[in-house]
């Protein structure tokens, strides 16, 4: 609030503090009305038994939830590695002096960022039909990692490119003046600094990837390959109850919330370093 605003408020007879108090009072009043209406209109018993039935939570744990949890992590981690390697390569191509590399990288990045990820997954589900003798190794991991990683690489490429460009020019000049060839300077001087700069946004991409791994069921994996969403959906279907899906949903939070905290911590650390 600026000084002149405060002066205007004074004239109306309300200090800034009084105004804030009044606004807070209104917000609490609205909240109370909503809670009261919800309490009297909703059928809480039914909601609880559909979404949060303890016996189904228990059966989810005994019928394979931990395995699905692990699968989600494995799918995400592998895709992250592919995305990171592919993204770094694409970022370097995008900044290359060789024009065709730049064209390819730009086309790739724009294509896969513009496409809904689900389209890529549908395409992967149809691949075995189109190419009868196509074998992607490490089934089911290979297919999943590729499908997720191909899209992730496009997003990460842009983040990494920004990081590379944020490394001060003087760093490259110092490396060159010491006689480092371009490859060594990139590997030893530029990339380590670029990754430090892009750590927070990369961790953010990791969170998105955790959530995107839920699209895997579109590929049509077998039950043994289910990750959290596939597992939750399947069990919710057979039990005619949403509790398994809700439980799977909470498992995502167990992964994403700590990652979110990590991002914030990294951002704060980066801000302190400047």
């Amino acid at each position: 609030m600026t000084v002149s605003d405060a002066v205007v408020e004074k004239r109306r007879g309300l200090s800034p503090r009084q105004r804030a108090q009044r606004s807070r009072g209104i917000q609490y009043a609205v909240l109370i009305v909503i809670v009261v209406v919800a309490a009297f209109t909703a059928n809480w018993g039914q909601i609880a038994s559909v979404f949060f039935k303890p016996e189904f939570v228990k059966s989810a744990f005994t019928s394979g939830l931990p395995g699905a949890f692990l699968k989600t992590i494995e799918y995400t981690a592998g895709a992250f590695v592919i995305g990171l390697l592919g993204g770094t390569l694409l970022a370097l191509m995008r900044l290359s002096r060789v024009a065709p590399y730049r064209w390819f990288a730009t086309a790739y990045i724009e294509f896969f960022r513009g496409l809904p990820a689900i389209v890529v997954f549908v395409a992967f589900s149809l691949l075995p039909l189109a190419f009868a003798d196509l074998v992607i190794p490490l089934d089911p991991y290979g297919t999943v990692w590729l499908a997720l990683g191909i899209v992730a690489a496009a997003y990460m490429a842009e983040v990494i490119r920004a990081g590379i460009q944020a490394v001060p020019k003087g760093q490259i000049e110092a490396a060159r003046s010491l006689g480092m060839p371009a490859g060594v300077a990139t590997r030893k001087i530029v990339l380590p600094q670029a990754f430090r700069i892009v750590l927070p946004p990369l961790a953010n991409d990791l969170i998105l990837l955790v959530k995107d791994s839920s699209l895997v069921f579109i590929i049509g994996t077998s039950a043994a390959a289910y990750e959290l969403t596939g597992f939750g959906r399947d069990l919710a279907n057979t039990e005619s109850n949403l509790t398994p899906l809700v439980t799977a949903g909470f498992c995502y939070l167990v992964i994403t919330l700590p990652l979110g905290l990590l991002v914030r911590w990294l951002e704060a650390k980066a801000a302190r370093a400047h």
Partner: protein
Amino acid sequence: MTAAAAAEPAQSLAQPLVHAVNVTKSFHHNEVLKGIDLDVDRGQVVCLLGPSGSGKTTFLRCVNQLETIDGGRIWVDGELMGYADRDGKLYRLKNKEIAAQRREIGMVFQRFNLFPHMTALQNIIEAPTQVRGESRKSARERAMKLLDRVGLADRCNAYPAQLSGGQQQRIAIARALAMQPKLMLFDEPTSALDPELVGEVLAVMRELALDGMTMIVVTHEMSFAREVADTVVFMDAGVVVEAGPPKDVISNPQHSRTQAFLSRLRSEHEHP
């Protein structure tokens, strides 16, 4: 400078270590160097003076090929920088070959440019191990000697952000020396420093000069130039206006542009 001497640089010791002939350089039709001739003998210190924008930095960067020159030639220790001369025709060297030429030339920047993700020691051993294939052990031993020489052996494990500007610049000098260069280029090495930190960096440079290192130093520190330089070169607007021993160029400048520059510098020094 005769044409014959320019055409066939002998590698004898009598030949200057740096031999620049008619160097020209433009940035987008803006001619920044308009034919610079400069010789630096082995073990000599040349101080480059001149107003801001006169092309001093650009010239240093041309010497180690951070910039490509548009005309003229630069030899360092008998090697033509950046090009191969085949029957009078110049062919650009491969990037790898230019990188190899740069190894013989150390450069110290105004803003230090230490690698922030490495400790002082790692900064110093990085190039010798990566580029020269020197073992970490021997590179480390030499690095510790260099750190000792610049008075910072106790800070070997500090990161650049933990060091003062003067300390960072001394590490930067040690880093350049670790490649055992024949020639050291300094681009206003004390201009970014707080006044109380200038002395420690100049002291290291003075020692280096006494040890016989060949140096080209861009600086506004007149007392350093007067004491240490064998030759002072005054540049303005992309040309060498005046060159000679410090007692001539600094104490008794012949050219009006040199006189104007020095008196401006002196008045800035007295009333900053």
